[in-house]
Each structure stands twice: as structure tokens, then as C-alpha cells.
């Protein structure tokens, strides 16, 4: 009743240019998303969505981004995400687009989804493997990714507290 409810949107940044990966940082992504919201929904949309808007988690190697916004306005954010066309940072622009993977109410549900998704990606990579070395390392990663209570083991997620005291 007194808690502020948020929605966490998990997306993946897809780009053709491999150098775009270096450009994925929280300020650049936040700016790109805000600009897309402003173009799609105007000043009202931008103001609504930026009430509790942050980039909670970034993974530059896989291009995974976790955004947070208020539950009342998450539709504005979700419907503006397809309009993101480029990422800009340090005077470099890279054309890219955002692929929404999952919308969850807490960081933990998004984390669970991301672990399953990454496991599936690893399995796909396993099929395209050429080297026996690579195969072994991928098999090991697939076996070791799981969500544990004290500390996450998949290597790239951090267990975060989801209740906010505002």
C-alpha cells in the first residue's frame, strides 16, 4: 500500500557494428531512451517516464540493459522503445535497436528470465562451436548458471533489493 511499484524492462541492444558494444554505457543508453520517449510522447511522456527512470544494469558484452520506471507509466516507456535508432557517446553514433525481452515487477524476476535466456543462447552457441576447447568451456558455463539465494553464480547478475523506501 505504501510501496512505490516499479516495472523493470529488460532489453537487448542489437547492432551490426561490433564497436557499438564499447559505446554501451548507462548515460548513453539513458539519453537515447529519453530522446525516443520525447519524440514519441512529447513533453508529457518524457516528464512522466523520468519520475523514477534509471538504467539499473548494463552488460556491454551481451548488450543487455535493465531499465526501471514507475508502474503507471511503463506502457509509455515500452511503446517508445522501438523508436530508438542510435546510441551516441563521446561524439560517436552507432545505429542500433532495442529488442525488449521481458517486463517484470522486480529485479529478481528479470534476473531469472535473463539466466534462462542466456542459457538458451549458450546452447545455440554450442551448436555453432568449432573448437573442442570452446565446447568444453560453454558446457561448463551452462552447468554453472543458476540463481542462488546468497550470491548469484552466473557471473554477470547481481542480486539487488527490490523494495524501495522513498
Amino acid at each position, binding site marked *: 500500500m505504501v510501496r512505490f511499484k516499479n516495472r523493470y524492462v529488460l532489453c537487448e541492444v542489437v547492432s551490426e557494428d561490433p564497436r557499438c558494444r564499447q559505446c554501451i554505457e548507462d548515460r548513453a543508453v539513458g539519453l537515447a531512451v529519453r530522446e525516443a520517449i520525447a*519524440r514519441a510522447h512529447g513533453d508529457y511522456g518524457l516528464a512522466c517516464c523520468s519520475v523514477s527512470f534509471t538504467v539499473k544494469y548494463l552488460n556491454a558484452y551481451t548488450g543487455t540493459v535493465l531499465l526501471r520506471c514507475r508502474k503507471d507509466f511503463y506502457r509509455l516507456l515500452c511503446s517508445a522503445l522501438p523508436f530508438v535508432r542510435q546510441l551516441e557517446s563521446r561524439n560517436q553514433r552507432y545505429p542500433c535497436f532495442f529488442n525488449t525481452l521481458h517486463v517484470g515487477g522486480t529485479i529478481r524476476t528479470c534476473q531469472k528470465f535473463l539466466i534462462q535466456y542466456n542459457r538458451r543462447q549458450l546452447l545455440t552457441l554450442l551448436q555453432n562451436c568449432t573448437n573442442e576447447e570452446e565446447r568444453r568451456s560453454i558446457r561448463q558455463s551452462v552447468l554453472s548458471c543458476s540463481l542462488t539465494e546468497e550470491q548469484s553464480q552466473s557471473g554477470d547478475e547481481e542480486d539487488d533489493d527490490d523494495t524501495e523506501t522513498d
Partner: protein
Amino acid sequence: MAGFADLNLPAGPDKKGLQSLLEAAARLGYSAVALNHVIDFKEKKQEIVKPASPSELFPSLPIVQGTSKRIKVLNRLTLIVSDPSHCNLLRSTSANIRLYDIIAVFPKTEKLFHIACTTLDVDLVCINVTEKLPFYFRRPPVNVAIDRGIYFELLYTPAIKDSTMRRYTISNAISLMQICKGKNIVMSSAAERPLELRGPYDVANLGLLFGMSESEAKAAVSTNCRATLLHGETRKSACGVVYTVKKPRKVEEEETTLPACKKAKTQA
């Protein structure tokens, strides 16, 4: 659950571009894709070319992410009609038309829209998104089209590219929604480059912008697309289509329950 499908990928002469588009679509999760051949009658008279079969064009089709099946590639023909005489092409039994899986028509005037919805033998009616519609939709032809199983197609790539197009797209889409109440809508891209494609979840979110409810928007990308494909198959075979899906039976079930015919014999 029906897989996601994108029914409009412009089929250009560039094979490598098409291959990269297919790979991007498979990566995003689309299980079926239709290559669109556009015929415009305003230019010089064009013949309907035989579509190249997908196995010739692409030696190896990419696997859809999330499943283990390969992406399905279909052929689609779009006729841009601005004159009633152009529709005669559809009535003629040209052998090449039968080779296309989906036939779409793009009417430019109100009369042609009425004809397309009521009498023409097509699967999709394209709605113009790049300029203000010269005519208003009326309820009778739209209702007839819904009864016949014809779907209306909306493109979303112009909305991503340009701001003015976005306004026209949204206003045309909303006026269509008010008449048809969100039924029988298919959303597709007309992406020429892989960067213009969007995943099915994102396209469903765009449907929310156009005035659809969440379930209608999700259906616009999945079930309605599959219904269009089945309608196309019905048109080709001239009867009806029953789509069966094999359900895998577990081994324990077979041991404990006998099939119905055997049961009757033992009881008698």
C-alpha cells in the same frame, strides 16, 4: 501457440541483404517470413514474375531463436491498384499467381477499397501509412471483409524512420481501429535493412500506440498472421484447410490407456 510472423519483407534483387534480413528476423524470434514482390500498375505494364522458391535463393535457412526449427520463407505478391481495370489481373487464371502464398492488394481509392473488401480474392488489404488517407473507412465494407477472413495490414517501419510518417501512421491506424474494433489487423515491417526490424514484443507494444488492446496487439503479430497464411492456402486449394498439430504422446500413457477402438472390443 502460433509463432510470430512478419509478412512483409521487400524482396529486392540483393541476395546478401535478404540473407542478413532473414538472419535478423530469425534471431528476433519470427518463425515465418514472407518475401514481398510489389507490382505497381502506374508504371509500364509489368508481367507477374514467377517467384523464386526459397530453397533456391537461400541455401541454408537460419534457425529461429527459442525453437529448433528453421525459419519458414513464403512468397507474397502486392498489387498497387489505382484503377478498377487493374483488378482484372486477379481474376485471370494466370499460372504465376497460383505460385504465391499470399496475395495482397493496396487500394488507392474508396471504390477500390470497397471492391477489395467485398469481391476481390485476396488475403490482405494494405492500409496506406505514408500519407493522409484520401478516403474515410466505412463500416459496411470493413465488416464484409472481416466476415470473409480478409486482414488489414499496417506497416510500422515508416513510423520508425520519419516523424511525419509516424503521425500519418498513427492517425490512419486509429481511424481504422475505430471502425473495425481491433479485429483482423496484421502488423508487419517493410524493413529493407536489418536495423529496421523490431522484435515481436516491440511490435505488439507499437500496436498499443495504434489503439489496440494488449491481447489484440499480440494477436496482430501471431495468430492473425497465421490465419492469413491459412487463408492463402485455402485460396490456393479452393476448399478449406484443417490444420493439425501432432502432440507428442508420453510412453506411460500408451501403456495404461488403451485406444478407444480396442476398448470397445474387449468390453463387448
